[in-house]
């Protein structure tokens, strides 16, 4: 689209921002990337202006107008740039399924992922079990033997999960467990997604995520 100005306000390690980077790449949309240092407590004036109520990245800014929250921005991207790489299917029931699984996936980090790197002992063990059980359910009920969650095409639910998957390397080290061993189909799915340029070019270095979390543990006295 001509005269379109797209800015992505994001943080390199953000699993939510990663979703938007992948979607923008899938649709070959040109945009300006602006880094926000979410690890520090300082929020930029642009972030405060564009997302005054939540003050969080990612924020997609299209011709000066902000769209906040990753799933809302994904659907916006899909509706505005609808001619290439559709992220959601056309059938209303299939769309509801994709949204349902994306929502389920979204809860994984808040309910379990966060505790795996920031806690120890029983709480951490509980979170590990919770994550593995949830991923197994996802594998069985949502993915099955399909290539992607939506079937033949890479789409909404895949993008939702790939963001969180980027943190799994770090979580496996902190939790001393292997997601690959527990969920082989999801592991195969992850490798399949990484073959896509939109994913491989957008993914942060998993070792750097681990280092970031180590630093955060020190900062917040969580060692």
């Amino acid at each position, binding site marked *: 689209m001509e005269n379109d100005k797209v800015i992505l306000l994001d943080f390199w390690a953000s699993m939510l921002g990663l979703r938007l980077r992948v979607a923008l790449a899938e649709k070959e949309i040109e945009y300006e990337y602006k880094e926000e240092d979410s690890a520090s407590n300082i929020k930029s004036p642009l972030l405060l202006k564009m997302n005054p*109520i*939540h003050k969080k990245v990612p924020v997609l800014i*299209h011709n000066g*107008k902000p*769209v*906040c*929250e990753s799933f*809302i*921005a994904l*659907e*916006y991207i899909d*509706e*505005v740039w609808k001619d290439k790489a559709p992220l959601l299917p056309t059938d*209303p*029931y299939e*769309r*509801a399924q994709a*949204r*349902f699984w994306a*929502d*389920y996936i979204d809860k994984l980090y808040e309910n379990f992922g966060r505790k795996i790197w920031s806690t120890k002992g029983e709480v951490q063990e509980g979170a590990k079990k919770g994550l593995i059980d949830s991923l197994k*359910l996802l594998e069985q*009920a949502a993915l099955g033997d399909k290539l992607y969650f939506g079937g033949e095409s890479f789409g909404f639910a895949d993008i939702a999960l790939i963001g969180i998957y980027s943190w799994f390397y770090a979580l496996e080290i902190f939790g001393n467990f292997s997601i690959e061993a527990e969920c082989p189909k999801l592991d195969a799915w992850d490798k399949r997604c990484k073959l896509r340029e939109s994913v491989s070019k957008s993914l942060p270095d998993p070792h750097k995520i681990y280092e970031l979390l180590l630093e955060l543990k020190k900062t917040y006295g969580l060692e």
Partner: protein
Amino acid sequence: MAEVKVYGIFAGPFNRRVELALKLKGVEYEYIEEDRSNKSAELVKYNPIYKQVPVLVHNGKPICESLIILEYIDETWQAIAPLLPKDPYQRAMAHFLARLIDEKFVMAKYKVCYGKGEEKEKGRGETCEVLKYLDNELQDKIFFGGDNIGFVDIVASYVALWFGAIQEAIGVELLTKQKFPKLSKWIDEFLSCRIIMENLPPRETLVPLYKAQFEAATQKASS
């Protein structure tokens, strides 16, 4: 033949919004009242992951999570009473407001009801922050949807009715005409619509429920 069922509970804000959407669109459905302490086999079959209301079953296929159900209803029965705007940016804003209510506002209200000290104060602040945001969003419109009831109005029925009942039950008054004039005017307008009056539970039935809930929780906390 199209068959629509809704699983809900009498006082449930989330299933009532599903019923409102169907009524606005003139879709006939069968309502099944659930007992939360004794869930039906059908409910567990249709919503095995969360085992909760609301569930919409359309031609035997279940859709769960109220916002996802609302979108499904809008996409399936498109011709009558569109709930979401056509413009992608306006749609994104509607989704943003809906999530603001369902996430930030509901959590803040919980802190106001059950939080202690600093947490309670924070809850009060966050509740008012969302109310102010909604108040500003209304501008000079009759409804959030413009001239007609739309997606955000349906979701905001929680603020109009249920939050009003909660305030009365626990003896707080955060939502006042003085502080939120436009929102208060919208509440009066919205609750006096015939379709709303006919399809939402009377406030007098909600207040004692919340009083009992609050008293039980307070007693449990001090024992």
